[in-house]
């Protein structure tokens, strides 16, 4: 036995096998009819689309199993469009498969690398042309051009400056101040402590000074959740406990993770859950994070009642609400 390893040989393209339609004219005729039927079905689809656009009322609804209440016109337009396009496609593919030549063809490839001569000539041409520009010799031009090209991108950056104002103090502040009344959202009514039952949860917004508008930007940082527990459920330090009023406690509704509204309250466990990323806050312990990606508790709003018995803020939030940002000073929490 020789030491030469013999590999298997490429047997080359397999012999072409004729299809039925290639050899039997009747089969070919049948294929032609099938293809024609497919194309005609497409035409029917287009007619269905046009007819349902004109003649079916867009207010007709009916019940379909699985799909539920369905708009008849939208459905028929869709079915018509489906037929109109799908059957053209199926017809064309059937045509290619049944009647067009199905013998595989071989084409040669060429290597992409250019001939050595061409590559050398290119290098020469490049050098010669670059030399003609004088960029190699004239270093003053080269450097000043480099500087200006490096700087030219700054203009569009500077021009984008006016896309928005600077953040200023906006992220650090809210519209809650000492004495601001809590208003029920959405009806805007002030709240008596006695109106809130144990176990209740209400969204509240601050009463804005005259002339101020309730914009979405304000709601995005002012939204507060008001909850009432039994006072003995709290597990708070004395200062935080003094921020509550007879079991009523208020937290910023804006998640400290990514700013979603923390809207799910589990009454039994006193847990608040953010539906976006499932950060979970324990209301009894000052909305401490007990699960999920949020790193900070929801800021608590100190509340009390005014002379009329309405709930008011005792003081502004002591911390910026909502998600983190670079300038956020966290030295006190």
């Amino acid at each position, binding site marked *: *036995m020789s030491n030469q390893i*013999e*590999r*298997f040989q490429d*047997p*080359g*393209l*397999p012999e072409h096998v004729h299809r039925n339609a290639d050899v039997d004219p009747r089969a070919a005729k049948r294929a032609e009819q099938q293809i024609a039927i497919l194309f005609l079905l497409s035409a029917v689809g287009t007619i269905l689309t046009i007819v349902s*656009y004109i003649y079916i009322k*867009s207010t007709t609804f009916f019940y379909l199993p699985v799909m539920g209440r369905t708009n008849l016109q*939208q*459905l028929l*337009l869709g*079915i018509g469009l*489906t037929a109109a*396009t*799908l*059957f053209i*496609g199926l017809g*064309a593919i059937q*045509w*290619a498969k049944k009647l067009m*030549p199905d013998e*595989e*063809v*071989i*084409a040669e*490839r060429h290597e*992409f690398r250019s001939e050595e001569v061409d590559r050398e000539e290119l290098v020469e041409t490049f050098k010669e042309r670059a030399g003609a520009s004088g960029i190699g010799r004239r270093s003053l031009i080269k450097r000043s051009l480099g500087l200006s090209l490096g700087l030219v991108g700054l203009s569009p950056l500077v021009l984008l400056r006016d*896309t*928005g104002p*600077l*953040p200023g103090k906006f992220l650090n502040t809210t519209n809650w101040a000492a004495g601001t009344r809590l208003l029920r959202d959405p009806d805007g009514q002030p709240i008596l402590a006695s109106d809130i039952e144990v176990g209740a949860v209400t*969204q509240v*917004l601050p009463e804005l000074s005259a002339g101020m508008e309730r914009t*979405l*930007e304000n*709601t*995005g940082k002012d*939204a507060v959740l008001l909850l009432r527990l039994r006072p003995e459920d709290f597990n708070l330090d004395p200062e935080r406990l003094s921020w509550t009023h007879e079991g009523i406690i208020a937290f910023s509704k804006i998640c400290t*993770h*990514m*700013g*979603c*509204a923390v*809207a799910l309250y589990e009454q039994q466990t006193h847990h608040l859950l953010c*539906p*976006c*990323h*499932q950060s979970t806050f324990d209301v009894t312990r000052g909305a401490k994070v007990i699960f*999920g*990606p949020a*790193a900070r508790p929801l800021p608590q709003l100190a509340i009390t009642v005014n002379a009329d018995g309405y709930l008011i803020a005792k003081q502004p939030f002591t911390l910026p609400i909502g*998600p*983190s*940002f*670079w*300038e*956020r000073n966290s*030295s006190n929490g």
Partner: protein
Amino acid sequence: MKTSQKVAGAAANYVDERTGAAKWLKKNLTKVFPDHWSFMLGEICLYSFIILLLTGTFLTFWFDPSQREVVYHGSYLPLSGIHMSAAYDSTLHLSFDVRGGLLMRQIHHWAALIFMSAIVAHLFRVFFTGAYRKPREFNWLIGVGLLTFGIVEGFLGYSLPDDLLSGTGIRIAEAILQAIPVVGSYLAFFAFGGPFPGTAFIPRIFIVHVLLLPGLFLALITIHLMLVWYQKHTQYPGPGRTEKNVVGYPLMPVYMAKAGGFFFVVFGVTAFLGAVASINPIWLYGPYTPGQISAGSQPDWYMGWLDGLVRAAPPLETHAFGHTISWNILIPGLIIPGILFTGMALYPFIESWISGDKREHHLLDRPRNAPNRTALGVTAITFILISLLNGGNDIIATHFHLTINGIMWFTRIGLFTIPPIAFVITKRICLSLQRADRDLVLHGRETGRLVMMPNGEMLEVHEPISDAQKWTLTQHQTPGALPAPLPASATVGIKGKIRARLNRANAVQIPAPTLSDLKELGEAHH
């Protein structure tokens, strides 16, 4: 000559005398394309993109990209009298008062999901078969770009209606911007034209969604296709197929009919989905307001894995010197995706650096014959799938009666442990499949026929496989050629040692059987 032929001839002459196109067309009308179902994945990307352009144009005729506040008075009564943005109002108008509007919206959204799915499937086809190897690295990079821009484009698209769900998504995007150290809050204020949500964002992302990114797509897709055309398509190994040829069917008429027909099939399937399968019913969510949210908030799937990573992140923040750095946002939202996409873009270059292989490749690999690459791909898929699973943890928890905490901990541990296990298992499976191929070539196919020998011994009759099959199963290894032996100078220093180690790992292969093996075995039998 018939009149129609005369007219066609005159037209062709008119064009050719002005462009000289005849020579080019003559050559290219018969250009050969190889046939395989997996080559249709890229076609689906292209066709769904065209569907997106067509339906998207229709939508712009009615959609009003404005956050100006209006009061709804349309025909969807449950929202009558509600304050909302003009964007949401016009989307409701499109859905209920424009004939075919809802259908177009739904086709557009389904086409976007199909577009992204097809891109990902196409990417993995290209990856697992090694189609990105020299000379096709440029197209790999363009593909990674298209995937990245596709994710952004999809996110911007479903953010446009300004409903409660999409607004929540924008709020999260704003928080990611805001979390970027030093410049974050500035970037957020510039992007939104002030505090969130403002009135500038929807008009701005609208122009990015309908002009900037589609233009970029068009340019990148054009280059992508021109390169495919010029470099000629890769082909799977088989009898008669070599590195020097391309075997398949000519463009005219076969591929014109097949590819053209396939466009209509993709359109038909997307239209059918749009007709019967409700998607993004924004009227159920209500208009966006930052104080509200709906339970079970979910992004589309191509964003879902990112959301899953964000959900799994531990609560890490650094508070120092009066500044805050949110690792719980930066790591899952920017750093991990950055590493994944950079790694993906660089992969062809890394692989060629490890193997020292600088040859052109036009024959595709069977995935089992590149065990490390295949295992790496499966590792990545596993990582993404676990993240995606966690992106739907609330839905999974309610549907399968699990706790969210349980799923979250499964993800946190699983993200680090399961992908490596997937790597090892996949590599083992690949090597076993190589052994199975070797067995098949040397011992033939099991026929299931049992024969009793005169001495009572029972044997199963094996039947030799065809020469064509033998060739397909053994063509992949020219002994000693892959991985190319690294020059000694390449294995010096730490970088060189890493390279040599990876190179050795790649060399673990079951040797492909040869005719000599078969002959030797035959002699042993006699």
